[in-house]
């Protein structure tokens, strides 16, 4: 299987450059062609193709019986997804903004995540919930959150955070083929991000971290939108002769602890970055996994960088301060490497 770093280095035959939005659309279309049980439901997913236009064209190919515009009922559509998944379909539920999963948490956590276990393994819930994350879109506190920590906490769920078109396509296909409820977070500021994607069918297994850039001096574990920030920081660090290894876990559950720990053991220093709120966030888990697993190898404490612990402000001058940037990552990396 192609690793995404491989793909991004060579233009192989049968590999094209497409956006992350296109990659998602392709994954959905191909899986819907492959399996008639797969369908999509959500608010304005059909003719409008979602406000992000990610689904444009799907209703034209698959019709309104498989690309279904729903009422504005997040709990209800999540519930329909659970019931549909339990009885022979493979629903994909679109929750427009990740902020809205609060409305569907009971369905996702008390129903979807637990049905298999509570039934002693008899019932299954092959459900995908696609939703979004990320700030800096100037849409303020209720449309900018990155709430992956909540669902990552819950046994029974799998959680995917793709950072490139290649990963997005391969991971979404895996999600759709998985027999468990999978929460799939799309960075809403990344839909236009371009990358090389094979034009053949491929999947990416869950729980396998990807080294997005190899390095020796410091490990930077980053998720979703923060992978691009980390890569940009790595470029800057290279000029300072600090070689950063960028590790993308790709799924927060299952989590590829081994790769994270191995990288940190090699470099002896680690930063973890995720766009969710910092406290009690994804970075806490990643940092403590590394701190425990690489304990005897670390030269400095693992540094966490999440979103600032404030509701996301509207004003651009404030909002831009709330998320890690390449510059702020460089500063932290320099400190960790004793370069201040």
């Amino acid at each position, binding site marked *: 299987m192609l690793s995404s770093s491989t793909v991004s280095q060579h233009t192989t035959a049968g590999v094209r450059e497409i956006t992350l939005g296109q990659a998602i659309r392709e994954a959905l279309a191909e899986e819907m062609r492959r399996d008639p049980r797969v*369908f999509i439901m959500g608010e304005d997913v059909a003719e409008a193709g979602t406000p992000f236009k990610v689904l444009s064209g799907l209703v034209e190919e698959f019709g309104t*019986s498989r690309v279904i515009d*729903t*009422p504005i*009922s997040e*709990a*209800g*559509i*999540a*519930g*329909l*997804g*659970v*019931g*549909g*998944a*339990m*009885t*022979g*379909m493979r*629903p994909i539920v679109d929750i427009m903004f990740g902020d809205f999963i609060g409305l569907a948490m*009971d*369905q996702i956590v*008390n*129903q979807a995540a637990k*049905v*298999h*276990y*509570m*039934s*002693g*393994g*008899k*019932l*299954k*819930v*092959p459900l995908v919930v696609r939703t979004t994350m990320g700030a800096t879109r100037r849409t303020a506190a209720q449309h900018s959150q990155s709430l992956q920590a909540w669902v990552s906490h819950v*046994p*029974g769920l*799998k959680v995917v955070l793709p950072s490139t078109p290649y990963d997005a396509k391969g991971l979404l296909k895996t999600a759709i083929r998985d*027999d*468990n409820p999978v929460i799939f977070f799309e960075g809403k500021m990344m839909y236009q991000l371009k990358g090389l994607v094979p034009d053949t069918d491929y999947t990416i297994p869950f729980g396998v971290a990807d080294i997005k850039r190899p390095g020796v001096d410091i490990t930077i574990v980053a998720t979703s939108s923060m992978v691009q920030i980390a890569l940009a920081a790595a470029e800057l660090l290279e000029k300072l002769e600090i070689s950063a290894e960028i590790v993308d876990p790709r799924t927060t559950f299952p989590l590829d602890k081994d790769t994270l720990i191995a990288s940190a053991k090699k470099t002896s220093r680690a930063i973890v970055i995720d766009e969710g709120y910092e406290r009690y966030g994804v970075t806490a888990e990643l940092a403590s996994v590394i701190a425990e697993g690489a304990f005897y190898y670390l030269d400095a404490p693992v540094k966490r960088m999440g979103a600032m612990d404030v509701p996301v402000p509207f004003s651009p001058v404030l909002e831009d301060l709330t998320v890690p940037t390449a510059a702020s990552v460089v500063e932290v990396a320099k400190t960790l490497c004793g370069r201040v």
Partner: protein
Amino acid sequence: MSQTESPKATATNKDEEQARWLAMYEQMLTIRHFEEHVNQLYMTARMPGLAHLYSGEEAIAVGVCAALRRDDYITSTHRGHGHCLAKGARVDRMFAELLGKEAGYCRGKGGSMHIADQDTGNLGANAIVGGSAGIATGAAMSIKMRGSDQVAVCFFGDGALGQGVLYEVMNMAALWKFPIIYVCENNEYNEYTHYRETTAGDLSARSAAFGVPCETVDGQDIRAVYDTAQRLVARARQGEGPAFMLCNTYRYYGHHVGDIQRAYYRSKEEEERWKTQRDPIQLLADWLVEQGMTDHTLFERIEQKVQAEVEAGEQFALNAPFPDPGEVEEDVYA
């Protein structure tokens, strides 16, 4: 059981009818005895946790499920033993589940509030009030998408009328004509509070406001329940969309087995009135006698059969082994 026959057509039909009512009688009795044993298991501290008994409401589960096929779906509630048995579950494996044994329907992982039985189309009891409305409606959606002629039934209590998600999914069921019947078991109480203190307006208007027609039924009269269910299920099966059955009923025991002191929220007289005047099993028995469909010996025989089955089931469960500790981490993921 066909949906179209008229109950009084021919001699064969008469026989069939008798058999059907007697089967329902037996099922109601099974539920009643099952629960009395559950209560005893609790009282004698042989059952872990609690259980919410269905006694008094048997006509609804049995009447509705009699109108269903084995491959139709139901979803159930914290007060779910009746639904589960009526849909065809076995007494012994249910006892085993309630006792947390490996032989239980959910290998002991679900317990009283989560019994599910895929083989009989029971998608599970649910401990979140209103929590199964989405699942049932999604099952109905799936039926429609797969082009099947199954039907889904969502059982819930009057308390679930407080949960917004119920209205969200009824709206979609109506919009898209899903084959689903919402069965509201109005036993007058949300735990320890009378529904009139929690529920404004006319209950029967609720579903209609979302495009789902409502029929109100005497939930103690299994013949009324069955007839209505038959009609609404047939309608749904033919693609004519969802319906709502508002069944008025009463629970004989407390909210759960531990709810012994109930005087502060309802009177002994009220309880007695329902038990003596409106008992669904007695009402059916009276009618059967009146119709000459049965006699004392037949009742005795049924009683003995049910008692034997319940006692054997309980013994089986008491003797059954607990799950292996290693199972705790199994079944988290498929």
